[in-house]
């Protein structure tokens, strides 16, 4: 292969080959070292701390390992933690499903050659690239009944509505909607890219055979974009674990703990109660979940990427 160095080479390289290998190492080493320092070391430290009941109100006294699994045992018994997992699952599932649906629908709508549509595609990117805090502000305004134009419009036509985020039954849905609004462009972009890559021939052949729009979609387009939809879903799922600004600004985990996702619960434990050991254990659990899903993404892209994109 042009320019490549096989490191399974039998003889030890001299001269130019050695120079090349040194050069590559020189370029790669700083990154690997720094990445290691800022990811692996903190991860190890996190694990370590999760084995202690560390409490910042008494750091010296609580940094001990006499009962390493105390936090994990507590987690299993903690109804608030279990509740937060359940909230997380509900939020992630609803939000990701809505994002996929809306993103897919809009992608299909906008998949045509026209300058108007191209411009609209660009504008639709905005929710995704806005600083998440701004998204939170936007929806804070929309959900606060005194100031929200939506609430007042509903009032005018005689359907007054209680604030969605103050109502424990609807609070999580309110956040889900806000998150859908923020992230549907991601699916839209990825599906659009995939739609561009569908070759014309199968579509033409099916049209000539008399397929209508729905059949075209179901039998030709959908199989093509299914891998992209799956990757989208996985990515969005992992990202949904990180949801913070929305909850922080809109509901602060409430009313009660109705919108308290696991990430938020960990935040509260660490920065409200100063139970760092416990919070670390929560973080470790989340990290493992992320690891599992990341690994399945890389496996999925490996197996399907080969059969599709050749």
């Amino acid at each position: 292969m042009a320019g490549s160095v096989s490191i399974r080479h039998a003889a030890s390289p001299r001269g130019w080959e050695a120079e090349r290998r040194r050069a590559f190492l020189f370029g790669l080493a700083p990154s690997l070292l720094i990445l290691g320092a800022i990811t692996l070391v903190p991860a190890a430290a996190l694990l370590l701390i999760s084995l202690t009941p560390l409490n910042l109100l008494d750091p010296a006294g609580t940094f001990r390992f006499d009962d390493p699994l105390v936090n994990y045992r507590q987690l299993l018994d903690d109804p608030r933690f279990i509740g937060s997992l359940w909230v997380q699952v509900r939020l992630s599932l609803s939000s990701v499903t809505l994002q996929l649906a809306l993103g897919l629908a809009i992608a299909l709508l906008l998949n045509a050659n026209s300058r108007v549509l191209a411009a609209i595609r660009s504008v639709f990117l905005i929710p995704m690239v806005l600083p998440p805090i701004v998204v939170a502000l936007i929806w804070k305004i929309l959900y606060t009944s005194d100031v929200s134009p939506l609430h007042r419009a509903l009032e005018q036509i005689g359907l007054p509505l209680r604030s969605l985020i103050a109502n424990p039954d609807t609070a999580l849905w309110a956040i889900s909607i806000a998150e859908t609004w923020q992230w549907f462009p991601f699916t839209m972009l990825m599906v659009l890219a995939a739609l561009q890559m569908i070759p014309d021939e199968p579509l033409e052949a099916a049209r000539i055979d008399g397929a209508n729009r729905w059949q075209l979609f179901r039998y030709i387009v959908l199989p093509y974009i299914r891998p992209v939809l799956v990757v989208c879903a996985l990515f969005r799922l992992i990202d949904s674990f990180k949801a913070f600004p929305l909850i922080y600004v809109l509901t602060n985990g409430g009313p009660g703990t109705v919108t308290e996702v696991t990430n938020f619960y960990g935040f509260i434990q660490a920065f409200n109660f100063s139970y760092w050991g416990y919070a670390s254990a929560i973080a470790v659990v989340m990290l493992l979940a992320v690891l599992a899903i990341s690994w399945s993404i890389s496996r999925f892209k490996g197996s399907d990427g080969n059969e599709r994109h050749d």
Partner: protein
Amino acid sequence: MNATTDTLRLPQRGSAGEHDVPALRRPGARPLGWLRRHGRAALAVVLLLVLMFPFLWLVQIAFRPAEGAFDDSLLFTPTLEAFRALLQGNFARSFANSLVVSSLSTVLSLAIGVPAAYALTRWRFRARGRVALWILITRMAPPIAFTIPFFLAYRWIGLLDTVWGLALVYLTFNLAVVIWLMQGFFEAVPAALEEAAWIDGCGVWSAFWRVTLPLAAPGVAATAVLCFIFSWNDFFYALILTRTHAVTAPVAIVNFLQYEGWEWTKIAAGGTLVMLPVVAFTLLVRKYLVRGLTAGGVKD
């Protein structure tokens, strides 16, 4: 021997509605024809207005006078008093902090990540897949997992509430993005060009600097912008790891919500200012957005 070439004109894929038009040239069918031809665009515009309404609503509040923030009238004389009030306080300083931290983080990530990306591209070694996975994980890890150890470490070394400390933390996700994206861009430069440069008198990094990098410059620019955007938008790390000195704009706005009462026009003005650089940059690099957001997961 007479060969006539007959090209079968297949209808364009994108104009699903277009090729129906000839069949509709009946009188009375014109409005319907217009709808069929432009229905897609019309629906898209309607959707655009509906979906962009929340965003536009925030922006227009920023230009209202403080007392009449939520007047029913849709027409009003725009005023910049909210922005002026905003900049009189500490907000300008936090905005500057955001600029400094984002720029610093971008420069650091590029300086460290670009050579690494090059080495990974030209040096095929077996662990490449595992490196990709590592990159994916660093992008995906929940911030809480890193903030706890970083907070404790920074408290100890004294990097809490500093611009450098924040920029360093941002490396956790930006470095990965740089390495992932630049690999793709470097792969697009033919290795033969570097070989010619070697023969002409260059060493490995000399050829990289004189030949490969200039040709990958647009990629570097796009990557830089993406790093800037990701740094600028961060909320969680900034919330935890800063107090007063290194507060960035996203966190400063939230302070309005909690401490300075609910001055909606100022909040809206703050939000508008914070989003401006990002939206502007996004329009520049929208081609590369998907690549940046799926770093580590999807081979381009």
